[in-house]
């Protein structure tokens, strides 16, 4: 198909995460311009700190303060920063072993160009002006020509108003393409028609079609127009209003077997008091103002369908 349907699809979520005792101390420390590490049983200092030794799984709680200066252990020049990255001008990603630490921390290194960066170079933390208790409290790293300081001081990890959680916002921008079967369904809806697809093996008509018969595992290619009328096979009465929903409660949400369809789809029933909706009620679609989909279904006035005509579709 030459003109594939596509639409922007944004997935966005503010993940709320709680912190354990070590992560809480580390991130609160960053807020206070203090970098904490954790000492392992064999005396190594891990920065950033973790709660369990990655080699022995031993619980780690022995916090120490390390220096805000360090040495690059490896790096990579990023000529085109991407959304969300710490700097919006070209920078180096760097793994940095802070003075006093035995492991390396990943962050952005602000440097004029790749020729100004090398493994072994000395750097220091540039603190963010506003700090909240997050890894981004380190704005970035910057070149620093001082000598390594290896003094490691014990730290109780106690700060006023400790950070116990972070909110990590994430946004990803996709382009959604629905595929052949659903594209045909959406195009037909725009013409106020409902199409399904018939399974060549079991003859069931799927609506909306997804391109495959989940029973037989084969492609459904035979397009079939169904409805517009249908039968309520089962329903429920909704009594609690959903957020941002402009529909008065109570209302009826039903499974509707469109004439000719092999399974029921779902929709709202209106144009009849909610307590008079019943199995077997004959309904027809009422299209939304923009005409892109049925807004709800209303009674046709026909006699109710006989149970035997829809019992397989419940």
């Amino acid at each position: 198909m030459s003109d594939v349907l596509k639409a922007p699809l944004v997935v966005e979520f503010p993940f709320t995460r709680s912190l354990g005792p070590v992560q809480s101390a580390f991130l609160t420390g960053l807020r206070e311009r203090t970098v904490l590490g954790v000492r392992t049983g064999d005396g190594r200092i891990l920065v950033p700190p973790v709660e369990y030794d990655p080699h022995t799984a031993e619980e780690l709680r022995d916090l120490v303060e390390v220096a805000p200066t360090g040495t690059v252990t490896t790096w990579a020049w990023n000529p085109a920063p991407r959304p969300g990255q710490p700097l919006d001008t070209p920078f180096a990603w760097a793994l940095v072993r802070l003075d006093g630490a035995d492991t390396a921390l990943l962050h952005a290194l602000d440097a004029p160009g790749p020729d100004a960066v090398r493994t072994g170079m000395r750097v220091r933390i540039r603190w963010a002006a506003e700090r909240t208790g997050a890894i981004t409290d380190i704005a970035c790293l910057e070149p620093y020509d001082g000598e390594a300081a290896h003094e490691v001081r014990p730290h109780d990890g106690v700060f006023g108003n400790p950070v116990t959680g972070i909110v990590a916002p994430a946004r990803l921008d996709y382009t959604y393409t629905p595929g052949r079967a659903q594209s045909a369904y959406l195009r037909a809806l725009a013409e106020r028609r409902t199409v399904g697809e018939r399974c060549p093996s079991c003859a069931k008509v799927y609506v909306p079609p997804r391109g495959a018969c989940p029973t037989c595992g084969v492609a459904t290619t035979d397009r079939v127009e169904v409805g517009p009328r249908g039968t309520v096979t089962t329903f429920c009465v909704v009594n609690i209003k959903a957020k941002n929903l402009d529909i008065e409660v109570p209302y009826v949400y039903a499974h509707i077997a469109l004439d000719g369809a092999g399974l029921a789809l779902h929709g709202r029933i209106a144009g009849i008091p909610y307590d008079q909706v019943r199995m077997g009620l004959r309904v027809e679609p009422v299209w939304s103002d923009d005409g892109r989909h049925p807004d709800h279904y209303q009674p046709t006035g026909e006699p109710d369908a006989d149970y035997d005509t829809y019992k397989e579709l419940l």
Partner: protein
Amino acid sequence: MTAHRDVAIVAFAQTRHRARTEELSEVEMLMPVLHEVLARTGLKTSDIGFTCSGSSDYLAGRPFSFTMALDGVGAWPPIAESHVEQDGAWALYEAWVKILTGEADTALVYGYGKSSPGPLRDVLTRQLDPYYLAPLWPDSVALAALQAQALLDAGDTDERDLAAIAARNRDNATANPFAQLPGARPQGDYVVRPLRTGDCAPVGDGAAAVILAAGDTARALCDRPAWIRGMDHRVEPHALGVRDLTDSPSTRLAATRAGAFDRPVDTAELHAPFTAQEVVLRKALSLGDDVRINPSGGPLAANPVMAAGLIRLGEAAARIHRGASDRALAHATSGPCLQQNLVAVLEGEPRDR
């Protein structure tokens, strides 16, 4: 882990991997390869003892997308089914264990991914540690570039060597009708230095499926089954700064447990989406120049995320099926900088019998 029951890969199929497949939904992309492995063995869905898949919702940005893909299997009457939010190679591992326990005699395994709908480099940041790494959005190429620089600093490789790896893989892919990038191409500019365009796997969409079978069932379904002699998977500590990025002890350990070092292999299909990672894997697996590496072209020629590892097992098995290999190693990876690694050893029976 080594096998106490004979289990083999008896059929393999894959899509023609492409940069985008806008006209196809996931199930529409996947279904032909499911049908192909079933047709190749003559099995029907109802004959399959266990079905297992690998995929990730983050690629397409859609929740529970694997349930939709399951429509392509045909799940009536009800089937025994499982899913891993991982490369299909790990689904194969689960299916193998299922057969080893005697719970099934055959298994259908598939993996698929459409990377084209979203920005893959950014999407993959969501698999990182959410406290210290993910808020910085270090993309997948950036992390691989850190590993590459570590190798350069250690003297394990240089940019010419990396270019030669890219060229060899894509040359090999000219014999692979399914490859997305067959044939050598310019190394291009730096994406994240020291990695250039040519050092990175293409982004694309694709799917793969295999059928596993035990003992005599395998012999009945395939002229020369690819027997799984051992398979194991291991993981590194998740913090990159804790690891030596120039080495892959998890790969070496998995290979040891899988029996890879018991006898030489003639072929290795390595899941290295970046040229520098092939250097790490060759060292970890002690692969010499006598081993044919990625005759398929490997992930540098086609890298459908969540299927590319399963394809390594499938390609290694297919070479055994057609007599091009007698003992092959297949490797799959997942996560940044070779974080998780799976190694399988496949063998064909001696051909002079």
